């Protein structure tokens, strides 16, 4: 057999200090590295299109076909079930009048601003709850409870306390989203392997430096899950607030559009509003949170390609 670096030697001399050829060692090491290295190639765009984009598009098309068939079959009068074309007509009119983007922007800007405020409040609160035992004992159960309280319940008191204005909308969003963001961060921090914290401490990352360099990045997956849920809650709370508390001063958002449609007995407008609310919710998730989450998980090798 050829002379290998790992083959047993039977050298009896105690000064068996024949230095192993440094070059051979480097070569052996390079071989081991190459044999044992994991590669994670990115899936090609075409495959992503076929496997990820086509199925949901097909599902939407199917829903449209079934809907049209139901209309043709006359299962319900037009004022209860408008045709897809009637809803499309609403879209066109709103677009041509230039109000479509106004409706969307009124709600989206409110939702995003509220979400950012919830982020700014929920993050330090999460750090406090996770790291300070007394705060956790005091606030932990309360935050979990708040998370399961439908935020629409906050609309009546918010209207009474703050009146029919934007502050009331933001208050409702905060009450809906802050618990999710806080709980997400707390869960993320609780799931940090203790080894990372010990490694951080031996490297000298304690206190605020530990929080910044170790705790926050280690908790990021849980935190992101909390943010995602926080956005969903922000959006829901806002829609509830807009539907219940409509007032001419507030401008027309998607919630008001829906409520106006009901008042005008225009089912196609109601459908339009529902679709827009749904699409905005999906779009923000698809364009912001999902890529962010995938990027974080892929960087850590936690994304299993299915």
């Amino acid at each position: 057999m050829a002379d290998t670096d790992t083959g047993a030697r039977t050298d009896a001399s105690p000064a068996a200090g024949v230095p192993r050829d440094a070059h051979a060692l480097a070569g052996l090491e390079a071989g081991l590295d190459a044999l044992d290295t994991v590669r994670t190639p990115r899936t090609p765009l075409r495959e992503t299109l076929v496997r990820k984009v086509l199925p949901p598009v097909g599902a939407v098309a199917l829903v449209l076909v079934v809907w049209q068939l139901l209309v043709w079959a006359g299962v319900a009068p037009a004022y209860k079930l408008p045709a897809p074309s009637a809803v499309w007509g609403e879209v066109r009119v709103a677009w041509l009048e230039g109000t479509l983007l106004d409706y969307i922007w009124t709600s989206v800007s409110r939702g995003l601003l509220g979400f950012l405020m919830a982020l700014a409040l929920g993050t330090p609160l999460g750090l406090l709850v996770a790291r300070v035992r007394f705060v956790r004992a005091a606030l932990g159960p309360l935050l979990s409870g708040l998370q399961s309280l439908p935020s629409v319940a906050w609309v009546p008191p918010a209207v009474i306390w703050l009146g029919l204005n934007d502050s009331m909308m933001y208050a409702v969003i905060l009450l809906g989203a802050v618990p999710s963001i806080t709980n997400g961060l707390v869960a993320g921090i609780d799931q940090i392997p203790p080894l990372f914290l010990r490694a951080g401490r031996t490297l000298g990352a304690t206190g605020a430096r530990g929080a910044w360099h170790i705790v926050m990045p280690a908790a990021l997956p849980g935190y992101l899950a909390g943010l995602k849920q926080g956005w969903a809650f922000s959006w829901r709370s806002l829609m509830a607030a807009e539907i219940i508390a409509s007032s001419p001063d507030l401008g027309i958002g998607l919630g008001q559009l829906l409520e106006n449609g009901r008042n005008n007995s225009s089912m196609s407008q109601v459908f339009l509003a529902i679709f827009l609310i749904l699409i905005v919710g999906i779009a923000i998730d698809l364009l912001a949170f999902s890529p962010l989450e995938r990027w974080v998980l892929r960087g850590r090798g936690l994304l299993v390609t299915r």
Partner: protein
Amino acid sequence: MATTVTRAAEDATAVTYAARVEHVSKSFPAPGTPGGQQLVLDDITLDVAPGEFVTLLGASGCGKSTLLNLVAGLDLPSAGSIGTDGRPALMFQEHALFPWLTAGKNVELALRLRGVAKPERRQEAERLLELVRLQGSYRKRVHELSGGMRQRVALARALAQDSRLLLMDEPFAALDAITRDVLHDELTRIWQETGVSVLFVTHNVREAVRLAGRVVLLSSRPGRIAREWTVGIPQPRRIEDSAVAELSAEITEELRGEIRRHGRH
């Protein structure tokens, strides 16, 4: 009982040791019995001289990790005193690399926390990766590295702390034999090149003899220093060397005796 933990580099007096463990004991609350104490380490006295390579050998559960954590300052002794020359670096059995950073950035984080200025960090990290023969792996993610490569990055990160004492807790135990063998060679080379003192914990007798200038055997329950051997075989050694095998056989016999004592109750 009084306990003190000194980080000697903080005062200006010269020190003649990399680590000094004096009459250290450690108890943990015993599970099941309220108020009861389980004595894990009993009156350990051990010095590591500057530039020395000491292996701490003992059966699983005898308190090796506990002792290393005490020296690292991650826990406080119940009695006795511990002094080290500056803050020691610590390497674990699991690589403990941060998966949100690349290999290079893991090393750079240690440099940053040590206070190395930003412009020098990148270059220094590249130099350390080269030292563990991972030049070109700067941008690799932790999950893209093999087990052996991860431990080498972890070694580079520990070296980035520029400590005079490197504590290693069974760092190669989870690796296959060939990779472990290669890493023994690398560790010996790096120890010789850097002159760092090493306190290396293992339950593998051959590994202990392959690496160390001195082997310290711990008994179990409670952990006491049972015996010490000075290893005169010149480096670099091979794990298959007959001299390594002979001493290993002697130490194994002693270790078996220690373990057997516990069967006789």
